[in-house]
């Protein structure tokens, strides 16, 4: 009797740990276990089927000897740089403009942000139609009188990656706007009043005082957008299917193609590991500083 109640009291004390332990186990198995498995496969002879024979860096050599991988890496850089800088520019511009006591701010904000609620597949489908060389923008401009206008970026291997940027910016720049607007609203009103008394006009108030105060927002927005860029898969598939050819391949689509279409598990695992390393290099320092800030 007594030992029974002592047992239940001890159980009660351990309950929080007990409740959390499945989460811990799931995380260990499905995240860390899987990462280790993938990383291990990338060092083996695996082809169509997993083969657990250790093979050193052979898969990585094959990966870095694949021209398609270079296309994917180059696209990732081009896409990420353009996507982040254009989204940031639009986001900051719109946030600052919306901060000027605009009466219908709520409506405008809703409009700017709704693409964020859509699936990238939907976005890709729409933009594929709008950018369609036969019936889309090209014909619209030709109908307006510019008979020789051509806009075939969607099917032009040299420019197709920029159409991915266009659609991605359309979908995510509202998100950057929302993050910056929230940042602007967290600036103390009295600082803006002080700037007005000090004689600063709107330009000087924002460039000299408010935007420098938003450095942390700037940083987290860049990280979030970079993270979106590295993971971008759906949009490429829906918009260009990675093509023409593999002109718009990204690491995410590359990995998928090698894993599920070409069944080269070793190379796929190596490319996934490369992606993970990139994300870790960006995210871990950021998470570390964020967690230190909110720990409490």
């Amino acid at each position, binding site marked *: 009797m007594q030992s029974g109640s002592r047992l239940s009291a001890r159980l009660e004390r351990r309950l929080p740990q007990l409740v959390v332990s499945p989460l811990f186990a799931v995380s260990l198995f499905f*995240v860390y276990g899987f990462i280790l498995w993938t990383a291990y496969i990338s060092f083996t002879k695996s082809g169509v089927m997993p083969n657990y024979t250790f093979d050193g860096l052979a898969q990585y050599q094959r990966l870095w000897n694949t021209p398609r991988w270079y296309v994917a890496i180059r696209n990732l850089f081009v896409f990420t740089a353009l996507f982040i800088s254009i989204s940031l520019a639009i986001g900051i511009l719109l946030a600052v403009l919306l901060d000027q006591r605009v009466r219908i701010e709520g409506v405008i904000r809703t409009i700017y942000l709704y693409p964020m609620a859509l699936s990238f597949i939907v976005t890709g489908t*729409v933009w594929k139609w709008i950018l369609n060389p036969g019936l889309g923008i090209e014909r619209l401009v030709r109908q307006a009188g510019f008979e020789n206008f051509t806009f075939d970026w969607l099917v032009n291997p040299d420019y197709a990656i920029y159409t991915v940027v266009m659609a991605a910016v359309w979908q995510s720049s509202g998100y950057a706007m929302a993050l910056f607007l929230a940042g602007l*609203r967290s600036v103390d009103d009295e600082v803006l009043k002080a700037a007005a008394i000090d004689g600063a006009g709107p330009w000087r108030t924002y460039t000299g005082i408010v935007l420098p105060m938003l450095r942390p927002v700037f940083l987290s927005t860049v990280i979030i957008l970079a993270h979106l860029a590295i993971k971008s898969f759906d949009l490429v598939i829906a918009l260009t299917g990675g093509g023409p050819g593999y002109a718009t391949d990204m690491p995410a689509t590359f990995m998928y193609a090698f894993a599920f279409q070409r069944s080269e598990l070793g190379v796929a695992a190596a490319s996934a590991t490369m*992606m993970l390393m990139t994300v870790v290099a960006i995210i871990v320092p950021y998470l570390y500083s964020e967690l230190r800030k909110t720990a409490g």
Partner: protein
Amino acid sequence: MKERRISGIVQRRGPRHVLMRGLLFAILLLFCAYYLVPLVVMISTSLKSLAEIREGSLLSLPQTLDFSAWTKAWSAACVGVRCDGLAPYVWNSVLMTVPAVAISTFLGALNGYALTKWRFPGADWIFALVLFGAFIPFQVVLLPMARTLGFLGLAGTVPGLILVHSVYGLAFTTLFFRNFFIGVSNGIVQAAMVDGAGFFGIFFRVVLPMSIPAIVVTVIWQFTQIWNDFLFGVAFTIGDSNPVTVALNNVVNTSTGVKQYNVDMAAAIIAGLPTLAVYVIAGAYFVRGLSAGAIKG
């Protein structure tokens, strides 16, 4: 989102001021058009006949409202070899999303509560470990997950997708609830403990009822994420068990027959409507999810 409290600093009135205000609104409205035009094009194209699409212009509105593309997208469009429209795949998405949202939200709340209100040694470490899972590129788990689903007999099934989304949603939901509970006073939990309530008693009777806003934000966020998912859907399901995003992509990228742009657009609207509706109805909570999840992607 918070509004500014100050009603306005005195400014010099005059032509310059009027011009600047005009410019401000011109830019704001221009961007409204930028974000809205694709939606308008999508809707108007879905209501045109194929002939009208070929002859008319991208931006022209349909001359007669033709809903046949919608019926076709819903019940007759070809997804692969099957030609009975998106309807069964919408149903797949519902079957997948509802349980996955419920499971990941509930477990996220329970874990967030245990990690913040019952701080035990190592709680922060466990959280950091779990949190990392929210940021990994999922490509790194695709191969082992496919094998695990096969091992469990869940490969290519909707329950398999429920498992995948619950597992990888858990890191997000735990993060959301942890951030919410950190702002809740420990005094409330301590008071309930003094009143004799235990771990689960406090959770169900004290903590959950006061977390309604966090639950709403999390449910909306998870719903949007899981409904819109493509990667897991395309990697782990085949044919009949595809979620609607995969089916939409198959409809659009089918290489057989004449391109039916109106059906493609109607299908895209059908696939996007549930999340769009949630956004319009509960936009404030959606935005809160976006900025509360600023520490995430």
